[in-house]
């Protein structure tokens, strides 16, 4: 049952149709009963006449009746939404409230400017004023305005809280009187740009929902957007969404506020490479530049600089002097391609530094700039825990990692007793803990290690002859739920390598040791493994015939290339990472510690394990951010937003939210009013006050979402071909305040022709059924 003007109830519709169709029948019957009595003498002539005309008269009457019923039927169809799309019809029937829905795309791409400096947002603003003018002065005009940036992206609503904030209409169903119009004009004139990414799909859902909730109104939907190819391409879901919207809206207008596809370069990523952030050592950065244009970009100069943004102790935010870095030069980026370059930075003093990369000006300026915050400490600390048996691995590890202060890593060796004290907070000062020659630990120590790794620390355990297998099974493996997910068997003796055998240590494709694979005459080939632990048979059987690493673990190197006998098993536990080394660190079961590659492997392993200390390095505006609540943290988190030219920074207190699996986290997403607190790129300060004095403040650089950087827009003809059935496509300068009459739909045309034909037939039948004197000759 189609929706009709009068009611959504099928019963009412059917009753109405039946009642209307019964009218001509009733009139016909009443006319037959309403006879005038006339005494008549010349009856014989009447009888003769009636005998001659009986069948013809009956047929004419029947045809007349059917014609009138058909006219009413077609009129009913036209008045219903099946055939009637013209507001004049609906106004005639008293459905005179017209609701204008302005869907204003204020996403980042609308800030792209043309040569004259006019942005799509400015054109949208002018068009919106024209729409207001269109509605001006007419009775029963309602207006709703929705900025796309007000709507959370689908990803956020999907993974975020179950109670997503409701969409916030800037104006919702406001009667367009003089006062409201003035307010809306002021709002449009001061419409702020937004750095957020926003797509049309959630907008379509929201506006459709709004229209369906107000079925008595005539809805006209105006989409003011640049209609980027990314959002409106044909394989996208928008055609279906618009079709669904067309069922409830009387009219949809797609108003193109940018009609030209523009070339655009964007810095998609800027982040430190590696996880040793210390002073006096080079800290490499990776920068990725994307070309979103249709032609190659050549000779691109990326300007770089750095400046301190915190005091050396990290407790005060400062605005240090900008120190230029050597520019990066990129010869060419193909259309649709990207180029990644590495450059080095170095800092003399500890503290937080802001590294900035900037591209030459192009249509979209916001994505030409990218910043990254790096916190440089005097040295990154590594803790070596060595068992009492004294296999002397610590000196090798200290020498490999410390390298006399040149690596930025400070190695501290402590006995196992260190774990017996309540040292959770002290452990947090270390990036990585290396455990060697340990037979077992008590449960408290294991718990502390698990907490350390869970919170982002790295742990490497070197197995050796001292290991208590039962302890490993019960405390470290714990049925796959412990720090290490590989059960052990052995240890096993490794026979000497034959001339045809591969080297004892074979690096896999894993990035950790991939660099060692390509070496000719690699020193790694000289490493001899005499004794190792191997995974338990069930694990090995699951690896039978498989050359790929297990699903949840990584195997950077194996014994003689056999994936069932890994030498290092990389795993994750909470936010941190673990490494299980199947042989000793000291040259007890192998001679690796005496091999030059031991230094490389130790450095790479430390870097890999420390990665859990640096999450959230690529924060994007508008997306939900999360920080774990650590033991000893206070009940609130203080967020300070950046100061921009448009608005001052503000401080926001966040409450922790409980997680389903236990624990808690601070989450920054839209508030209950739908307001986005992290909608500006820049440096945000996050302070977690400690329960006692102090607390820790971290700084985060936030960039724009490069999904908005593609400024390719389809041509008008392409857009019309995609959406012409559902909507009218107009460029912003083609839109006029005077409402154009919508051409009648094919169905309406057919119905109109049908009504005309039926009226002619009815008139002809009436003429045939009545008397018309012949003109006298």
């Amino acid at each position, binding site marked *: 049952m189609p929706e009709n003007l009068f009611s959504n109830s099928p019963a009412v519709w059917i009753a109405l149709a039946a009642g209307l169709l019964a009218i001509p029948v009733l009139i016909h019957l009443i*006319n*037959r009963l*309403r*006879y*005038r*009595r*006339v*005494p*008549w*003498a*010349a*009856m*014989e*002539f*009447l*009888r*003769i*006449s*009636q005998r*001659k*005309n009986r069948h013809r*008269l009956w047929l*004419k009457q029947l045809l007349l009746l059917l014609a009138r019923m058909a006219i009413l039927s077609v009129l009913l169809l036209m008045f219903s939404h099946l055939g009637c799309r013209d507001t004049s019809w609906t106004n005639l029937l008293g459905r005179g409230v017209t609701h204008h829905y302005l869907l204003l795309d204020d996403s980042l791409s609308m800030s792209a400017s043309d040569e004259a400096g006019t942005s799509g947002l400015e054109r949208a603003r002018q068009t919106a004023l024209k729409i207001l003018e269109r509605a001006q002065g007419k009775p029963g005009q309602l207006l709703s305005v929705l900025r796309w940036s007000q709507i959370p992206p689908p990803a956020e609503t999907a993974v975020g809280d179950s109670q997503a904030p409701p969409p916030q209409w800037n104006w919702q169903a406001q009667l367009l009187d003089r006062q409201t119009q003035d307010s809306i004009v002021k709002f449009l004139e001061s419409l702020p740009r937004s750095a957020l990414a926003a797509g049309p799909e959630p907008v379509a859902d929201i506006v459709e929902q709004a229209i369906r909730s107000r079925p008595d109104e005539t809805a006209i939907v105006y989409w003011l957007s640049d209609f980027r190819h990314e959002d409106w391409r044909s394989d996208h879901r928008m055609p279906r969404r618009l079709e669904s919207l067309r069922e409830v809206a009387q009219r949809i207008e797609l108003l193109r506020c940018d009609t030209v596809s523009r070339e655009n370069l964007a810095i998609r990523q800027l982040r430190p490479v590696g996880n040793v952030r210390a002073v006096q050592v080079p800290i490499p950065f990776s920068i990725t530049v994307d070309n979103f244009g249709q032609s190659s970009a050549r000779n691109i100069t990326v300007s770089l600089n750095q400046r301190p943004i915190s005091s050396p102790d990290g407790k005060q935010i400062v605005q240090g002097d900008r120190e230029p870095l050597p520019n990066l030069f990129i010869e060419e980026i193909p259309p649709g391609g990207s180029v990644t370059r590495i450059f080095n930075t170095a800092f003399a003093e500890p503290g937080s530094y802001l590294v900035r990369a900037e591209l030459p000006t192009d249509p979209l300026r916001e994505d030409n700039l990218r910043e990254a915050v790096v916190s440089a400490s005097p040295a990154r600390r590594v803790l070596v825990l060595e068992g009492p048996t004294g296999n002397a691995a610590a000196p090798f590890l200290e020498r490999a990692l410390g390298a006399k202060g040149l690596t930025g890593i400070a190695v501290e060796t402590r006995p196992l007793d260190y774990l017996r004290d309540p040292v959770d907070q002290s452990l947090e000062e270390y990036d990585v803990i290396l455990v060697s020659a340990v037979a077992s630990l008590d449960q408290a120590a294991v718990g502390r290690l698990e907490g350390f790794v869970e919170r982002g620390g790295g742990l490497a355990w070197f197995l050796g002859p001292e290991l208590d297998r039962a302890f490993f099974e019960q405390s470290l493996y714990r049925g796959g739920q412990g720090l290490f997910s590989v059960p052990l068997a052995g240890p096993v003796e490794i026979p000497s390598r034959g001339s045809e055998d591969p080297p004892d240590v074979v690096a896999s494709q894993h990035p950790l040791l991939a660099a060692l694979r390509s070496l000719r005459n690699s020193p790694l080939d000289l490493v001899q493994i005499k004794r190792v632990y191997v995974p338990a048979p069930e694990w090995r059987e699951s690896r039978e015939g498989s050359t790929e690493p297990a699903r949840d673990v990584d195997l950077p190197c194996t014994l003689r290339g056999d994936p069932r006998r890994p030498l290092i098993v990389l795993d994750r536990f909470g936010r941190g990472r673990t490494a299980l080394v199947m042989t000793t660190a000291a040259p007890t079961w192998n001679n690796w510690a005496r091999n030059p590659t031991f230094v490389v492997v130790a450095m790479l392993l430390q870097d890999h394990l420390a990665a859990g200390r640096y999450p959230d390095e690529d924060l994007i505006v508008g997306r939900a951010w999360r920080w774990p609540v650590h033991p000893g943290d206070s009940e609130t988190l203080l967020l300070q937003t950046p100061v921009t030219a448009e608005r001052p920074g503000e401080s926001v207190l966040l409450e922790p939210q409980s997680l389903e699996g236990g624990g808690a986290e601070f989450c920054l997403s839209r508030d209950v009013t739908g307001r986005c607190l992290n909608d500006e790129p820049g440096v945000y300060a996050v302070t977690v006050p400690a329960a006692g004095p102090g607390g820790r403040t971290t700084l985060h650089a936030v960039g724009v979402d490069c999904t908005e950087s593609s400024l390719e827009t389809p041509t008008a003809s392409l857009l019309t071909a995609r959406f012409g059935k559902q909507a009218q496509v107009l460029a912003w300068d083609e839109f006029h305040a005077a409402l154009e009459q919508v051409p009648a739909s094919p169905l309406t045309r057919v119905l109109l022709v049908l009504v005309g034909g039926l009226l002619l037939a009815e008139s002809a039948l009436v003429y045939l*059924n*009545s*008397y018309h004197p012949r003109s006298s000759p």
Partner: protein
Amino acid sequence: MPDSKRFLHPDALARISRLDLRAKQIVEGFLSGAHRSPFFGHSVEFLQHREYVPGDDLRHVDWQVWARQDRLVVKQFEEETNLRCYLLVDSSRSMEYAGGGISKFEYASTLAASLAWLVLQQHDAVGCLTFDDDIREVIPASAAAGHLPTIADRLSRTTRREASRWDTIFARVAEVFPRRGVMLVLSDFLGDDRQIVKGLRTLAERGHEIAALQVLDDDELDFNLEGPTRFEDLEAEGFLACNPRALRDSYLAAVQEYLDRFRHGVAAAGMQYKLARTSRNFGAVLAEFLTEWQARIRR
């Protein structure tokens, strides 16, 4: 239209309740016009000669012709009495129909009274008879000056109406008026036209000069009725419900066919025919009728 004729319109005359006065009004208005009565000069005695046949009365032999031409001829004479005019007025139920104002019976009665006045003005005798399925009123012919009120009074009081019986009525009339004369039949003649013509022919065969004045209403002739109508038969049980618009063409065709057939039947029998619409003024109808009658006599 002269003032005298203006008053001859049926609607105006209907206001005169006495029929004799109504007739006098009509005829005086009519006589003041250009027309003269065709009934003048009927006192001539000699009519014609014919050959003598054995058995003829010798008193009627013209001896002067025998003396000059030596052959026997007989002189034929007109009756020596004045003209006898019989007015036969149909008083059946079908004559009750009155579409707009005056009914067909009233119209026929008025015409009959007017003709009676005319005849009496000539000092001729006039008689009257009303009929439906039988003879209802009979007024013998008389030339007395006070005869008109009698005729008018009897016509006015005629109320009993039944359906016409055309198959027998004229034979009965012939018995009532055996003496030859001019017989003017005023009726709507709605019935079997063959039977009607046959009846009129019976009268003609008895030596009467017959004139048929068919009185019909405009509704019956034009059928300009509107809206759903239930036609109820005036002379029989039964009705017919219809939209008159739808039947009009074929109705008019049937009426015209009937009138043509009847007119031809009457003419073929050597009788005078005149159609009188009840909407027409009496003077015009009388003038036309008498003009046509005079022309027929001259032929």
